[in-house]
């Protein structure tokens, strides 16, 4: 893993992987949606509403997976100062929040016809709502400080503390009374769901997962390039005292076209 902690190496690897990831995402979604919407049968109890499962369950799994990834990255960032860990955690956070929202909304739309209510304050639903707020807090905290590193540190600590919520979500259906059905895939004794529904579910889960990684790599790449841009701007300012003075007057960080900084290049273009 340490070999991929080098940002340059990560960028090369991500660039090479990205087209394959995107192609695999599209294929998995096409196959998964076909199975989920056309090929799979209606449930004997829930009727057609069971099709909401193919959205709801993969989104919920991914929401929890993304949080675990953020927690691990945060630990790496705090302990080893991996150059990529903070970038990964910050890039994964909005994605996780989005998938949590999808799981909450689709679950709500499933609950109305099956339970007779959009929402109940039981353990599973409440702990999942808490996950959503943890994501929002993580995103806000990372950007709440003028010093990026301090923001990332604070967000990393929040992510680690909030990680206790993940097992609570997972086992909430066993520990407390709830309307939510218990685990039917990841349980002792194997899945209790018919293959005609298990296969579309798993394929959709793969599709969501592939989507997550291609979006994550793209966002990490964007952030790494932006960081390099900041370093170049800073170096250029330092090498040009007049520009540094102008920037100090204007604020702490210059825009790309700050007055004065382009004077030498402009002269070159004119001659």
């Amino acid at each position: 893993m340490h070999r991929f902690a080098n940002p340059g190496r990560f960028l090369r690897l991500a660039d090479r992987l990205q087209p394959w990831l995107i192609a695999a995402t599209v294929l998995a979604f096409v196959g998964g949606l076909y199975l989920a919407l056309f090929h799979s049968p209606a449930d004997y109890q829930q009727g057609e509403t069971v099709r909401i499962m193919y959205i709801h369950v993969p989104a919920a799994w991914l929401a929890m997976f993304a949080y675990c990834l953020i927690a691990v990255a945060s630990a790496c960032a705090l302990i080893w100062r991996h150059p990529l860990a903070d970038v990964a955690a910050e890039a994964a956070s909005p994605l996780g929040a989005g998938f949590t929202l999808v799981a909450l909304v689709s679950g709500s739309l499933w609950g109305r016809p099956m339970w007779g209510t959009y929402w109940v304050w039981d353990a599973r639903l409440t702990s999942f709502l808490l996950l959503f707020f943890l994501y929002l807090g993580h995103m806000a905290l990372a950007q709440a400080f003028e010093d990026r590193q301090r923001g990332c540190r604070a967000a990393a600590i929040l992510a680690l503390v909030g990680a206790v919520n993940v097992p609570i979500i997972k086992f909430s259906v066993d520990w407390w009374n709830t309307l939510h059905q218990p685990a039917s895939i990841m349980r002792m004794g194997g899945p209790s769901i018919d293959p005609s529904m298990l296969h579309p579910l798993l394929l959709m889960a793969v599709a969501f997962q592939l989507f997550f990684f291609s979006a994550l790599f793209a966002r990490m790449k964007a952030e790494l390039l932006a960081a390099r841009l900041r370093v170049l701007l800073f170096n250029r300012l330092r090498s040009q005292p007049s520009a540094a003075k102008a920037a100090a007057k204007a604020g702490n960080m210059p825009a790309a076209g700050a007055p004065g900084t382009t004077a030498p290049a402009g002269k070159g273009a004119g001659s």
Partner: protein
Amino acid sequence: MTEAMNNYLLMGGYAAYIWPAYGVAALVLIAFAIDSWRRVRQSTTALRRLEAQIAARDGTGRGGAAGNKPGGTAVSGKPQQRASDQQATGS
């Protein structure tokens, strides 16, 4: 044919729950795909522009102390043109 399709879209009377669930998921996924792609494009162009600017300045003989790595991936094309564009927007 259309009747079969209608029946399908009605989803046994649960259309009002099933299609919005798929719609929200599609909306979120598409929004993320577009946003991620735009972020990559924006930072790529901004970085290229700055690197071209630095390369152009080095080319006029005034640079060298800019602290940029000599192996940096300066982009071919018209760096000086870009640099003067920058100046126009900056001033």
